[in-house]
């Protein structure tokens, strides 16, 4: 049974529809890559699932419960979210930021168990050394890791990551996907949006491909992210090839084009 099922979801910000009737389901314990050109409706989809926006029609069900009926604390026990852009207003320390992931479940202040959980999340991402640093003074990549630690501390069955690798250097991006993969093997269901098709091909179990608010494909990455799909999304500008055992998407014109 699907842990999350999205049923004919429609939404628009006024003008032409941003999401025009999308349906798919997510199975527990899988890593899904959400893929599509800018403006395809990826972030809107996240916002609808999180209850930040109300769908015009259609539903999002978590284990059979309509999520629009849930209040914020209940939603925060189901979904955690790594927002795309994040402007920090006050210089909280990294430890405080990570603890905020659990503030829905502790009352007036964190107990030792929450501190330990926050610490474990920071250790796992290798940022426990930054715990007492103000996170406004971190580099973009470190800040991203702190936010991911927060999502891990929130410890929800479903995790939404909106471009998690955007601010990371290449090695850290790859390691981040490794962590996402590990988390999914531990039973988390992860929907991560990415702009690099290679990262999808290398790490995700399934791809969900959106274009102009429509679901183009959903299925195992090597099937969904085919040459035909790349052509459909980007014209004939990319070629799907192989480097050893790894599928690689590269520019169709080759490495140099002047």
């Amino acid at each position: 049974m699907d842990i999350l099922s999205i049923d004919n979801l429609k939404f628009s910000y006024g003008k032409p529809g941003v999401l025009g009737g999308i349906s798919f389901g997510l199975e527990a314990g899988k890593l899904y890559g959400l893929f599509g050109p800018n403006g395809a409706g990826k972030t809107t989809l996240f916002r609808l699932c999180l209850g930040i926006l109300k769908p015009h029609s259609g539903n999002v069900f978590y284990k059979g419960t309509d999520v629009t009926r849930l209040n914020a604390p209940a939603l925060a026990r189901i979904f955690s979210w790594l927002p795309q852009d994040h402007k920090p207003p006050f210089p909280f320390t990294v430890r405080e930021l990570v603890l905020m992931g659990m503030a829905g479940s502790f009352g007036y202040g964190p107990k030792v168990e929450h501190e330990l959980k926050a610490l474990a999340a920071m250790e796992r991402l290798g940022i426990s050394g930054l715990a007492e640093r103000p996170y406004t003074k971190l580099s973009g990549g470190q800040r991203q890791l702190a936010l991911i630690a927060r999502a891990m501390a929130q410890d929800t069955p479903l995790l939404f990551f909106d471009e998690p690798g955007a601010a990371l250097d290449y090695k850290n991006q790859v390691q981040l996907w490794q962590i996402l993969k590990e988390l999914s093997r531990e039973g988390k269901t992860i929907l991560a949006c990415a702009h690099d098709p290679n990262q999808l091909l290398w790490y995700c179990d399934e791809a969900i491909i959106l274009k102009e608010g429509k679901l183009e494909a959903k299925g195992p990455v090597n099937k969904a992210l085919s040459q035909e799909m790349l052509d459909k999304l980007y014209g004939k500008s990319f070629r799907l090839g192989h480097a050893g055992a790894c599928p690689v998407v590269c520019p169709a014109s080759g490495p140099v084009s002047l």
Partner: protein
Amino acid sequence: MTFRTAPEKPVNVNYLNKKLKRLVLFAALGILLVLAALFASMLGTYKTGPKEIIRLFGSKLPFYSGPEVPRLHDVIIWKLRIPRILLSMAAGSIFALSGTAYQACFRNPLAEPYILGVSAGAAFGAALGIVYPALFVSVRLSAFAFALLAVLLSWSLASTRGSTPGAALVIAGVVVSSVFSALVSSLKYIAPDAQLREITFWMMGGFYYAGWQDAALLFPLALLLGIVFSFFAWKMNILSMGDEEARSLGVDPRFYRPFFIGAATFASAFTVSSSGIIPWVGLMAPHAARMLFGSDNSQLVPGSALLGAAFMLLCDTLARSLTGSEIPIGIVTSILGAPFLIYLLRSRGRAAYQ
């Protein structure tokens, strides 16, 4: 990056130590504040020493059997100074607490208790009460009513289809404030000289008429506000991350923002109606506290309340004892507050604000 490393070393001992240190620091600050308040009760145009103060407090205990306390001491210290000291500390901490809550709610380090029109509304209410004493029962009541009215106006101007964005609210506050300020100016224009003077004095703020009645209302209000805000400090932390993130972390801004703003506004309107407009404390105390105690509101809320109380106590004591006649406290808070904040900004601001 290292993965799969379980937390082997007990790092949490470190943080428990830190928590204990903070607790000791707050307790020490609290005790210092009480001592400062006792010291302040000796100061004034009429000089008294520690002996008189101790004897006076003793005489208030049940089963007191010492020599009778002179009536003059009883009036000056017990009926005038002590309530005034309590009142100034309460007002200072209420402004500081409101400022802290406003800054978190608006995600804006420039937010302060007067940003939604509390001060302009209260000034207009007070001016109306002063110019038309026949129409308004008390200056104070009308100041309070108009302070609340101004904020309600700002709120309703900023609300569209059930949501109230923070930026819109700040702009609406500016608009409402300027309208009420214009109305105050027009009242000043038509007011006779004596009343014009009274309006001007009211607007500079002060605790001249402090009595036990005000202290008994405001002191519990300050304590209550401090306790409530401390209890919900983590909700405040999360609210300062912005509405969407707050929701995804389990804090509904549609409930918590009006709750914090409502409580802060009510308390500061009530305080302004009794003390007049005292500038600076509500902006300065939260910033000073953030630089000293960090951004986490569970430290920031009590820290800024204590600092606000201490600062207001200092300013009011100077205002009433520096010269033979009173100096309006607004002048003192501005003159003392500015260099203090600049000092903190230069010495510690780099860590906190970059």
